[in-house]
């Protein structure tokens, strides 16, 4: 009876991940985190490792639009989701997402290490709340540590992006 339950042994085996709209099949051990899988096996180095124990948010990605920490998911566990990383925020190669432009304009990044995580978390927020208050922005980013900026300019950037998105909406 036991044999019909799908079990992967410790060795590398194919994992199917749907990332930024594309299917990828990559052979990894079950213990490889989604974070390491994205970075080391799929070449997407935009998502960063800061602590590998879920305390800093640098590894934030979206699963089905919701911000989660990629260091706390093993690669096989991420099958079946639509995964979005910072590389997937841009509409195309020559255009930045409104959030990315806003971060630039508002000086919301210095070393840039926490920035991908911030962007992904902020994108998740704006997708479900187009008009967030300062408090709501801070709450949505409360799991993302930054050591450079003190957060004020990051919060301003998200608010700026929200305003810009509102302006771009077609009139009813």
């Amino acid at each position, binding site marked *: 009876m036991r044999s019909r339950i799908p079990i992967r042994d410790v060795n590398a085996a194919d994992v199917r991940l749907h990332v930024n709209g594309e299917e990828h099949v990559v052979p990894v*051990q079950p*213990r*490889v985190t989604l974070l390491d899988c994205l*970075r*080391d096996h799929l070449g*997407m*180095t*935009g*998502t*960063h*490792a*800061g*602590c*590998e*124990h879920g*305390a*800093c948010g*640098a590894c934030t990605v979206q699963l089905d639009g919701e911000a989660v920490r990629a260091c706390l998911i093993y690669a096989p566990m991420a099958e079946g989701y639509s995964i979005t*990383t*910072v*590389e997937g*925020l*841009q509409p195309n190669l020559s255009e*930045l997402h409104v959030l*990315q432009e806003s*971060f*630039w304009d*508002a*000086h919301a*990044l*210095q*070393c*840039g*290490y*926490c*920035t*991908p995580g911030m*962007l992904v978390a902020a994108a998740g927020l704006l997708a479900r709340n187009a008009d967030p208050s*300062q408090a709501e*922005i*801070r*709450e949505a*980013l*409360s*799991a*993302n*540590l*930054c*050591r*450079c*900026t*003190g*957060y*004020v*300019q*990051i*919060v301003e950037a998200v608010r700026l992006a929200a305003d810009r998105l509102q302006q771009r909406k077609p009139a009813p």
Partner: protein
Amino acid sequence: MAGQGRFVADIRLPGMLECALVTSPYPRARILEVNREAARALPGVHEVLSGLTLAAQVTPLTHGIEVAGIAWYPLAVDCARYVGEWVAVVVAEDRYVAEDAVELVDVSYEPLTPVVDVEAAMEPDSPIVHEAVGTNVIYRRTFTWNDVDDDFESAPERLSHRVRWGRSSTVPIETFGVVAAYDPGTDLLDIWASIQMPKFSEQIATALRIPHSNVRVHYDVDVGGSYGVKRGLKHAVLVGYLARQLGRPVRLLEDRLENMIGGDAHGPDRIFDIDVAFERDGRVRSLIIRALDDCGAFPGRSVLQLGKPIGAITGPYRIGSVRYEAICVCTNKTGQVAVRGFGQAPTNFALEATMDRVAAATGMDRLEVRRHNYIQSHEFPYRIPSGTEYDSGDYETVHQKLLDRADWPTLVARRDALRAKGMLAGIGFASVLEPSGGNAAFEPLLNPHNDTTTWMESCFVKVDHDGCVTTSIATPTSGQAHETLMATVIGEELGIEPELIRVVHADTLTALPGNTPVASRMAIMMGGAAAGAARQIRDTVIAIGAHDMQVRVDEVEYANGDVVVRGRPDECRTWMQIVAIAHRQYHRMPPGFQPGLQAHFVYQVPKGERLPAADGTVQMYPCYAFEAHLPLVEIDPVTGRVRVREYYVGHDCGTIINPGVVRGMLIGGIAHGIGAALLEEFRYDSEGQPLVGTLLDYPMPTTLDIPDVQIVEHCTPSPLTSHGQKGAGESGYMGAPAAIASAVNDALGPLGLRCERLPIRLTELGERLAAASRSGTLPAPEDLQR
């Protein structure tokens, strides 16, 4: 921002191997044997290296001062001296396998009694961390400037107190990482690192016993924050050695556990004992400061970190005499590294705590005491007792602007309204200096054999055939926007849009001399070097244009790249015409000029020409920025939880080259300072076991902990720099811890309680409030409402 950064973790070289460390579980132990067999046998493992093997092949790493008897190697040799010290390294195909192999390395230890408490470490019967030194006190010197004893004798008032600055650090979100690759054909060791460290390539070469020009450090690596701590010398020597041995690129990327304890990146850990002599009106006459620093098992730069604050030992105040005793003591804990401000933030905390005490003793308002003591704007340049001259300042004006911006009376009213609701609430104040421009003067000050005074930064600028400008900088960047700085300065000198200037990073073989972004120096030093090089280009352009029009240089004007005869606007040579002459038409060049259009400038730090005097008077850094902090905090009287509700800061760093960048640094520094004041500490138990090893135990401020910071800027330019700019890289952190402590003490004042130690831990404050409540000194809630 688009995920295209190139951090050390993103570097991919063919055949690259990964490292993981075997670390000591004991704070002090003899290493008896390192059994590597099982680990080496694991498939995917290429090497397991122990300290004995490595020590035979490398020269020990240097410290800030020479201490005979401390042999510092990347891997412990005969003895482990702190929990987490690296004992062996595993090199494998990937980090997963390397960590599996680490568990198979079998080390046998003989545990010894550690010394953990810094004051106990000074006792004659203490265990000695480095037996060959014979004592744990590796540095002790007293400096006396002017007549301290006389001033104390004659002053009407004096008081003594002790404050403690707990062991914290900057803990960037990116850990330290380094890649080494060796090419035997060219005998060149290439290094990519997340680095902020002067003389990095030189020290690697020295340790590996190879010529300096056999090491090339690449500066085009993104660095995920540093604020002082990313020195990585033992990491780099380790991978450099391994790369040469194994013939494959090797990377050491700290995981967070390795980083927090074994990375030797802890900050100052100080006890300050202070005596102050003062007038009844609050004017301070004299200070006696004893600064005792626990530098852990390997001092690193820590002794120098006791010396740098000598350059601002009296803060922004007119104090006539100072005695300063600096003591650096080893214990069996993680080693200390340079942290943002290089000792100035703890010293500022001690100074400001003292000023608040003076205020309390005289019954004066804390802010008025500062006003009585400020150096006045007409007194600059002002020489403090320790010999350093402050370049410029207008502290009184910044102070007043700050109060106006914060609307002082309504701020007080808001504090009182919080108290009326039953909360404890306090307004804090700190006025401090940020020394900037970084010279090396603390090295010869504390290290008589070190007669280094050269401390420089460089810039190379070239204009190509197309008229485009490229500049090359000799330093890595960890978030300080150096590219923006260079482009802005050069663009301004040459009259070109900064966006049109390309900035590249050199490597250590192609770079001109530089010292990397330490000591809040880049705006000053890189700005100065960029201005110097750009001005040479401009002068050359003017000379070429004037010569071609057969007029004298003083008859023309430079107008955004064009050269125009004064008063005759149609007699002109355009930028592109001059570029063509420089690159192609040597027959039109002024005689003796070199072909092409390029310049380099190596800029020595202003006022960096002299060694310290025998009595320890010294010109430390050249430029002194000023900041005044005014936070409002609220404390829950039951839980002791402190929340920073409002934050105002007045900031004067001279000419600001990029306002958005400076604002970001200032707020970032304040956030860091709030963490140091309320949250962050590397704690140890009495047996020397670290209690803090992950980010779960080391809480750093989140978006919910930092309020909206209101900044009021003022500009007192420096007369010493290219554009009047001073530094801002350490701003905010210089004063925030002192200001938060001051605010908490203002809140606790009505209860007769005081905090003398940072960080102010929740559980400790909560218990003190509980005790006050039980003994009746905490007013019942109804009382607080009056």
